[in-house]
């Protein structure tokens, strides 16, 4: 199991997509960050949501669907090791990837760009965990339904843009049609961004939105588990 984790980690670092998931949000942060005022509370939550969304919708499903497509899960089930171990290792590593991306954003945003960093650690962590769980659940569902890695990749990208738009990651929500902004708040990514925003503003995230994310995480994971095929 340790060796499996080590090898999978090596593979992840050789994956160009992983580097992109780290660099794209950072790039966006730096480009827009040059014009923010010190103490800004909007840009970092957006960048964090973009990063977690990329990992959840793009990296996770593509990796898992590719593993199934290539018969790696099947090959593993002929050994004494259960293929489920590989999925667990992957989930943990993708979580580490999301954490790394967010850590990088916080470090750069908080120091170089002088953006505001929230004081409430616990609400921040809770929001991060629930938002990541919701996005990973969507990713797992894509992995379960996609016939192969390429399709998973396509579905992930296709879903990413509308979800990012509704979540207010393409433009600020107050410039969006009211109805879309309201709907967007209850999408997984939108609830995540809004909750982060609340944390950054110094308040507690709304329990309703936290509940929404938890519900997405649970319901969509169950659906993913139901539809998942090993081969």
């Amino acid at each position, binding site marked *: 199991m340790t*060796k499996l984790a080590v090898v999978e980690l090596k*593979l992840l670092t050789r*994956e160009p997509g992983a580097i992109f998931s780290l660099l794209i949000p950072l790039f966006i942060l730096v480009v827009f960050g040059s014009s923010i005022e010190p103490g800004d509370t909007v840009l970092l939550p957006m960048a964090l949501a973009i990063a977690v969304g990329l990992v959840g919708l793009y990296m996770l499903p593509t990796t898992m669907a590719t593993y199934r497509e290539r*018969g*790696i899960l*099947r*090959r593993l089930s002929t*050994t004494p*090791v259960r293929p489920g171990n590989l999925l667990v290792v992957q989930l943990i590593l993708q979580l580490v990837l999301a954490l790394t991306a967010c850590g990088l954003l916080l470090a750069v945003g908080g120091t170089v760009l002088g953006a505001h960093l929230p004081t409430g650690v616990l609400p921040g962590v809770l929001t991060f965990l629930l938002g990541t769980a919701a996005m990973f659940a969507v990713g797992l569902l894509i992995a379960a339904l996609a016939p192969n890695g390429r399709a998973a990749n396509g579905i992930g990208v296709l879903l990413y843009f509308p979800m990012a738009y509704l979540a207010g990651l393409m433009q600020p929500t107050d410039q969006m049609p009211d109805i879309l902004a309201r709907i967007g708040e209850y999408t997984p990514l939108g609830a995540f961004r809004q909750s982060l925003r609340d944390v950054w503003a110094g308040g507690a995230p709304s329990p309703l939105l936290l509940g929404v994310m938890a519900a997405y995480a649970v319901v969509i994971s169950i659906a993913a588990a139901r539809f998942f095929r090993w081969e």
Partner: protein
Amino acid sequence: MAVIEVTDLRKRYADLTVLDGVSFSVEEGEIFGILGPNGTGKTTTVECVEGLRRPDGGSIKVLGLDPVKDGRKLREQIGVQLQHTQLPENIKVWEALDLYASFYANPRNWRELLEEWGLADKRNARFGKLSGGQKQRLFIALALVGNPRVAFLDELTAGLDPQARRTTWELIKQVRASGVTVVLVSHFMDEVEELCDRVAVFDRGTIVAIDTPAGLVDGIDAEHQMRFTLMAGDMVELGGLPGVTGVTRTGNRVVVTGRGDFATAVTAELARHHVLVSDLRIDKRTLDDAFVALTGRSFDSTH
């Protein structure tokens, strides 16, 4: 001792019956061939035996274990090369071997396998950069890294050039010599003739014969021919010899048709009468002929 016993195995996908009562047993230390045209259920059969697919009926025992119920215990003792499988593009050869070795309680030293299978200089190459033959050899090495008692190799030499096939065959013989029982799935006649101690011939989801390759060939009772050119001495009467069904002569060329081992009788008769011949040719009967005799159609026509 039988290490694998399969009795009346049945499997269907939706309304397609793939295995319709397959029974065979594999003895310890032999190379057992599973031969048949495409789509006749060879892979389905071995994957049921490996515990990868669930049969709809029949019973399977491997090393005394039920592949479905005692799967975990069984998987310690078998090594598998699947027909359709890949590794991650970016994994290095040594990493794959090292990783798979870590799955087993008593693995082989993977560095030895690296040498044996001619992959030592590809140690640090990524899977995606290997040639077809190198990938295939890596798969076989991975099937052996757990130090298995039984190895299942599905389409061993698919995609290999003739030279690489020969090399692989030699290595498989060494695997048998080391005491590992090998189940070899193939749709190549020459491979089975070269390697297998016994072979089960599959056709449309059933086994039509199980025998040694030589036994299968000898078992066919089809006519074949021998030809020669008369050099010196007078032609003798061959028509009455056992097995001979016809003799035709055109100038000095003679063609004798017959069944069974009539050629021995003919050459003995010629020698006894001091008839000197040249250009002697006996049509070699092959497993191909055996397949036609068993199924009534040619092996290649089913592709």
